[in-house]
């Protein structure tokens, strides 16, 4: 039986592993793999938790109050629940320095997508133009992945940007605010489409409405941000759990991979790892290795490996991420209405702005505010806290947020490199410089988004738009682009490294272009594609 070692159990790693197993390969998955705490009061809704949890402050804010957001912080409108701290906890020995970029890494079972918001948006053939193969070779895997994880949505006005695919289930029950917005869109549609080239429709989310296998359907508990206790919202650890029961699959958690070793012909032959707690070394012989540690960690692994193999670590260029701008809005029709807490919490609608170049499409996730911690929002109102609270009470049901995403392209000035110390430890240096035309692009797009909101009966309060720092969207890609032909720092259309044969990159590292859409659905599809094409039977 042929054998592959996979590094990382995130969205990319588990779907690569599943397809490789399906193809008859033996798979060993090495992972740091921090685990989630057990779900508390799994049947309780968001409001019930506040009534029934014996220590709700501990649950919502944390024993050390790490979930409380204080004024003067980064200007975000929500903080991460304390029990999700394990997802972002740093790893000792993985040093990182950055300029112009706020990097976020995960060493959890399931990786970053244990905290994702489930947005699952297929790329169009235009957006896949730089990928060195026929788009159809990737596009068909959207259906495969949707069948595995469960994606709900609709083929509606947004289909021009978000093509339909197999296994797209009907969307969840809309919350009242999203319904009002969709109704307003129907009325304003001719003008919005014509004048602003703006289209609104159902978002696409990796959430199930029906029961399947061990997962329950969504019952609108409204605690998605606090981790869905019913597993209706997909996370990669669900796939990992299923893999653990399969023959031919071995999971090695609590180990950090430090590098791969190559032979004289520059082909990988061994994986080096160490135990996270006691540092004990682990070596695994492997003629084929798949890196799925996330773009930053996978790149660091390659650089460390090249350093050990040839004595030098080059600079990888072309790091990409989606710039995100948060535009809060108030829907005047819903002022003084009671908020509906028992709803799906994340985006149920999306907004698309067409651009002359279809690759410059602008993607907005429209999240209406339902269950949420209110103190981060109330403190941002430019009034004393009691007055701000009075306004919030009357405006809660009317509040929403458009998370506007912009595309990114590979540029020399955005790079990853290694700095080594005397003790041979290395630090990953992340550098990011936005494109020169970015400020103007953001300005003109925001003008259109705000005009669109006005036509939907909403207004965006001045001074509250927040340009998130680069790195915040956590859609990292691009440093080892797939190309038909290229130098050592590129990969083949199967994501195989041209520097070290037998080493595959099955995460975002190899994307040659990053459209404005959240990329994880495509990460999973691409990982499954590589497994089928390069790890076939």
């Amino acid at each position: 039986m042929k054998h592959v070692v996979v590094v990382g159990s995130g969205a990319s790693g588990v779907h690569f592993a599943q397809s490789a197993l399906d193809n008859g390969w033996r798979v060993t998955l090495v992972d740091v793999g921090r685990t989630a705490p057990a779900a508390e009061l799994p049947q309780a809704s968001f409001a019930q938790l506040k009534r029934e949890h014996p220590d709700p402050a501990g649950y919502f804010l944390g024993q050390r109050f790490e979930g409380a957001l204080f004024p003067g912080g980064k200007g975000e409108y929500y903080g991460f629940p304390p029990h999700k701290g394990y997802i972002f906890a740093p790893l000792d020995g993985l040093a990182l320095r950055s300029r112009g970029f706020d990097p976020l890494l995960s060493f959890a079972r399931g990786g970053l997508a244990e905290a994702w918001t489930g947005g699952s948006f297929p790329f169009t053939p235009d957006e896949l133009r730089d990928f060195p193969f026929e788009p159809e070779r990737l596009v068909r895997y959207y259906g495969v992945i949707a069948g595995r994880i469960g994606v709900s949505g609709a083929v509606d006005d947004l289909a021009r940007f978000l093509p339909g695919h197999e296994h797209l289930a009907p969307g969840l029950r809309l919350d009242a605010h999203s319904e009002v917005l969709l109704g307003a869109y129907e009325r304003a549609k001719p003008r919005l489409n014509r004048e602003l080239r703006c289209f609104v429709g159902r978002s696409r989310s990796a959430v199930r409405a029906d029961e399947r296998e061990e997962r329950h359907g969504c019952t609108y508990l409204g605690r998605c941000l606090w981790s869905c206790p019913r597993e209706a919202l997909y996370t990669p650890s669900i796939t990992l759990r299923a893999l653990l029961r399969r023959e031919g699959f071995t999971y090695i958690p609590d180990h950090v991979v430090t590098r791969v070793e190559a032979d004289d012909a520059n082909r990988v032959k061994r994986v080096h790892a160490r135990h996270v707690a006691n540092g004990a070394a682990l070596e695994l012989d492997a003629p084929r290795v798949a890196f799925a540690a996330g773009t930053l960690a996978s790149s660091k692994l390659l650089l460390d490996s090249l350093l050990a193999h040839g004595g030098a670590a080059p600079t990888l260029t072309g790091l990409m991420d989606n710039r995100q701008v948060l535009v809060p809005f108030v829907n005047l029709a819903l002022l003084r209405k009671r908020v509906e807490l028992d709803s799906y919490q994340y985006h149920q609608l999306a907004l698309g702005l067409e651009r002359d170049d279809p690759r410059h499409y602008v993607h907005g996730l429209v999240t209406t505010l339902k269950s949420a911690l209110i103190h981060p929002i109330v403190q941002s109102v430019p009034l004393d806290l009691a007055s701000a609270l009075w306004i919030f009470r009357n405006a809660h049901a009317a509040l929403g947020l458009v998370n506007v995403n912009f595309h990114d392209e590979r540029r020399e000035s955005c790079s990853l490199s290694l700095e080594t110390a005397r003790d041979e430890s290395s630090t990953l240096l992340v550098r990011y410089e936005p494109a020169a035309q970015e400020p103007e692009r953001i300005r003109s797009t925001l003008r259109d988004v705000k005009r669109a909101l006005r036509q939907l009966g909403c207004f965006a309060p001045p001074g509250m738009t927040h340009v998130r720092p680069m790195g915040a969207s956590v859609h990292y890609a691009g440093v080892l682009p797939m190309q038909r032909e290229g130098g050592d720092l590129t990969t083949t259309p199967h994501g195989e490294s041209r520097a070290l044969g037998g080493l595959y990159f099955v995460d975002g590292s190899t994307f040659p272009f990053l459209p404005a859409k959240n990329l994880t659905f495509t990460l999973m599809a691409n990982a499954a594609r590589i497994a089928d094409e390069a790890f076939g039977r």
Partner: protein
Amino acid sequence: MKNSSDERRPAAPGPAAQAGAASHVDPLLERECDVFVRYLSGTAPSDYVRERYLAAHEAGVVEPRGGATGFERWIVRRASSATWLVRALDAHQRVFANGSLLRRKLVLLLALLEVRAPHAEALDTPTGSSRAAMLFVLAWLGVRFALTVLLTTLVLAPFQLAFKWEARA
């Protein structure tokens, strides 16, 4: 002061209470907790909220990074004497020192109130006013805020200077 609906709940001591934190309760902190909660919600804090407020201070999460200045501590002491003073000083700090000690304490209390019934529901229920009344109140809140900031700036300026002077000396 105890909140009656909270008393019916099964006792749920937080970690600070379990560790015996209640044995050295700071009466000044308790007092400011009471006044600040009245300012935010119009009611007294429940035992749970009070206990968590003290625990947050013990955990050291309330102080701004780099520590609070003498002026910030003085503002907190003044604010804890009456709800109208909290409003005035909160407005001033919102404009001139958003991340100050008083603002941090108030936001912490808001966070504690919003996670625990029955405060949570009360904080999140529309006031039931008509559209016209709402617009009127909105305008009033804006005007009152502006006037308050103006007035507190004038009143606090000499004190602020004195604290700066003292710190330099």
